[in-house]
């Protein structure tokens, strides 16, 4: 929770502040990625860090994603705390072996002899007109990969606090940053290095009528939808898991039981996405018997992200879609 006095910063600034504080405080921390130096990162996140910390610790790489993640694994095995960036999350496709077959498995597979404390920062999501190879939301792949932790902050405070935790977690952490959030602002606690624990959901809004579970950019859209619904007399609770793996089931199930209705909102394509897992956990839990209506999902279409801006918007949930889905859910028989 943000402290009483907070500073206002953008999501990008919050990520940058976390990186700067870690570089400042801990000599083990090193950044690597494409164009993170003088360019400041494709989204400006690492702007200024090269000047402050030098090219050895803010390390520009060639266009070699497998090499980047593999180097991060080696760094992590040898006592460093690497924070690697894929310029777009989509390019992780080039580094899956190092991420999934190496980083995720080494601790378990070597019987605990090693640990792999790396963070992989992934600017993700659609909405920028960058089309199908630059707009994906593939968090479900990593949630389905034992050994990885998966984090998806939805606001500046969480972005900063969770990144501090991720860097000091002894496991590989996949850290999703939604591109549309980078320029959004919010209050952030001013204490250097303040941590938001991994594995704890947030409940940015309580409400008695239904529970909306949402991730990433869908959290603010769900909060906006909840505001609209409130105008119609409907009180929606909004749960933001923040860490998708390991997931804070307790917080989700408690709210679902209390409200009896649940709407699951994600940007990623519907089929076999993260919200399928949430739906399954609800369906197999005791919350199941508290449900007054079937579980409802509102997700991205099962399509690649199209370029045309209207199509692109149509491919993922928008605020009116959330309002409509919630209303539909409430009309289901009690």
């Amino acid at each position: 929770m943000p402290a009483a006095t907070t500073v206002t910063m953008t999501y990008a600034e919050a990520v940058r502040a976390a990186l700067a504080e870690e570089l400042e405080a801990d000599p083990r921390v090193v950044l690597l990625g494409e164009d993170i130096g003088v360019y400041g990162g494709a989204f400006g996140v690492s702007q200024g860090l090269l000047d402050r910390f030098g090219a050895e610790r803010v390390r520009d790489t060639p266009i070699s994603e497998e090499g980047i993640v593999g180097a991060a694994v080696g760094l992590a095995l040898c006592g460093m705390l690497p924070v690697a960036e894929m310029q777009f999350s989509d390019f992780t496709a080039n580094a899956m072996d190092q991420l999934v077959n190496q980083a995720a498995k080494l601790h378990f597979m070597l019987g605990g002899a090693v640990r792999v404390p790396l963070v992989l920062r992934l600017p993700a999501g659609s909405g920028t007109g960058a089309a199908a190879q630059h707009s994906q939301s593939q968090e479900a792949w990593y949630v389905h990969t034992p050994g990885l932790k998966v984090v998806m902050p939805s606001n500046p405070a969480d972005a900063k606090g969770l990144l501090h935790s991720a860097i000091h977690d002894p496991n590989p952490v996949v850290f999703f940053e939604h591109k549309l959030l980078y320029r959004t602002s919010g209050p952030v606690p001013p204490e250097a290095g303040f941590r938001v624990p991994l594995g704890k959901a947030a409940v940015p809004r309580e409400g008695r009528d239904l529970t909306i579970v949402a991730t990433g950019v869908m959290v603010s859209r769900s909060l906006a939808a909840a505001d609209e619904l409130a105008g119609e007399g409907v009180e929606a609770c909004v749960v933001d898991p923040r860490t998708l793996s390991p997931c804070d089931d307790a917080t989700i199930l408690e709210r679902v039981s209390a409200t009896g209705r649940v709407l699951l909102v994600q940007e990623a394509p519907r089929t076999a996405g993260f919200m399928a897992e949430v739906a399954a956990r609800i369906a197999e839990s005791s919350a199941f018997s508290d449900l007054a209506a079937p579980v409802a999902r509102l997700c991205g279409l099962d399509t690649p992200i199209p370029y045309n801006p209207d199509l692109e918007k149509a491919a993922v949930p928008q605020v009116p879609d959330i309002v409509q889905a919630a209303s539909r859910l409430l009309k289901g028989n009690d």
Partner: protein
Amino acid sequence: MTKLATDPDAARRALTTMWTIRHFEEAVDAMFARGLMHGTMHLSIGQEAVATGACRALRTDDLITSTHRGHGHCIAKGADPGRMMAELLGSEAGYCRGRGGSMHIADVASGNLGANGIVAGGIPIAVGASLAHRLQGSDRVTVCFFGDGAANEGAFHEAANLAAIWDLPVVLICENNHYGMSMPTTRAFRVEQIAARAAAYGFGGETVDGNDLQAVSDAVDEAVARARAGAGPTLIEAVTYRWKGHSKSDQNRYRTREEIADWKQRDPIARFEAATRDAGTLDDAGLAAIRATARDTVREAIRAGRAGPPPSPDDLLPAVYAQGVV
């Protein structure tokens, strides 16, 4: 080999292509700046001689694979600038029906298997295409464009080696424009010439001045002839320079104004124009006419691009899978 600067027809064609690319991208640049286009774009202004010199060595049924910086390749291989512009404007009349945008334009009819948003993503695909032609008993050749940055991707390595061991009819053209985004080749490589990498796979590599239309054309001509004759792949490194930023977001912090200005002095179009003028092949009026033609083509492309209907959101899910059987 044709001496382009002395052959009026060839010179006219090449200049028309180069100017069309230049004007097309200037128009795109302006439209972005004015908010008439969205998304992102990668301009090849300053590199026109590579696409033009390479594609003039090809038959229509030869194929190319292109990159994120692909407008030039696309135009040079024979695509319709109107449908390209329509695509950039997200129109249903675009090459990808507005689904792909700048980074994904393909035109199979003119032999372009597509731009690619993934650096080096097209290289294995080009190798597969050339294997298809070999298996089909065809003498078609595939030209694969990629950047200096792409040469450090694993995909380049694996694909180059497959092309080598299978003696495939593919020509790998590395457009070395000195930077992969902000990363200079001097820091991304410890070798002077990217063409030297060909030796690691056992085929020939050559570095040419990518701003010299004739040099590009000659090198590609030869490589294509070799490929068509069954003598396998070649790596051609064409050294050139990108005048504009990497994409919209670029603030050019990694290079100096002087460097850019210096390279603008080496404009491949002006250089070839001068050669034709010097050779007496085209005079100022002839050159002006070519420029005017290109400008008209682009003007017409913008008109056509704007005229296209918007695509319908209802047609997303049904378009994911191809239907029927093969």
